[in-house]
């Protein structure tokens, strides 16, 4: 279902819990499908003993993918025209993430109705792990 521009107002939000208790196995799954096998994400021995981190951590792109799931559920399939993010904190195994889209603007460009959204994904401690912006075509 696509967004209906006339039913939206600036400040409207949509939130979803996009992962609960993130498993190392899901991070491995993401490594396999994205092709990013950086051992920082899957190799506890390397990451703790060589890289100096407390444990492996998720690919930023996994957080983007998880947040994208909330976003496409909200704006509809194939409706995004822009999706951009900044990774602000690392995501660790065991984390639970909530992703939120907030309507920032509703506009029209060349007869196409567009909705601008700001994005924020936070962990179980309320710490922001990712911020971003997206634009979607609306009806």
């Amino acid at each position, binding site marked *: 279902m696509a967004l209906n521009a006339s039913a939206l107002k600036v400040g409207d939000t949509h939130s979803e819990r996009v992962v609960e208790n993130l498993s190392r196995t899901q991070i491995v799954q993401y490594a*396999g499908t994205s092709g*990013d096998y950086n051992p920082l994400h899957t190799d506890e*021995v390397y990451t703790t*003993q060589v890289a100096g981190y407390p444990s492996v951590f998720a690919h930023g792109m996994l957080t983007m993918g998880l947040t994208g*799931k909330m976003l496409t559920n909200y704006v509809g399939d194939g409706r995004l025209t822009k999706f*951009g993010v900044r990774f602000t904190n690392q995501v660790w195994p065991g984390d639970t993430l909530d992703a939120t889209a907030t309507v920032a603007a509703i506009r029209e460009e060349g007869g196409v109705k567009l909705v601008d959204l700001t994005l924020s994904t936070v962990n179980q401690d309320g710490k922001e792990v990712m911020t971003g912006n997206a634009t979607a075509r609306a009806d």
Partner: protein
Amino acid sequence: MAKITFPVEASHIMMFARSIGDTNPVYHDAEAAKKTEAGGIIAPPSFAQSVAQFNPDYFLRPKPGQPWFGSGKTASGVEGKASSSGGLHAEQHFEFHRHIGPGDVLSVETKPGASCEKESKRAGKLMFRESITEYRDQNGNLVITARSVGVTTERPVSQG
């Protein structure tokens, strides 16, 4: 960097959607996807980054017969590697001109963008490097433009 040919395949999209926990049928069920506005299976928005699978030289994939910096007999298979965190992903931006799906064969080219240096409390000196990637379809049309920012840190990012 040379152009990479990225054939978009249904099974790859299905596995990618699974890895982000997305059960939307538009990513795996051809019949159900046909009835959606997309008109068939499409790829999730951040799928484009999986072009790494088709880069023969991708440095974050182990290659037969070559030392790998992850652990094996020892904590790292590469000796003398500095204990820095190496590169991290700072930003990723996609612009979609069209959503891609199975059957698309993309030609993908990455060019370096701007770079800058910053000082941070949590990780010391930071070196940001931007790259721009253009994805063109089999008809030569630009379908996705991506801008990626990577950061190299002086030391591991302190937590807290």
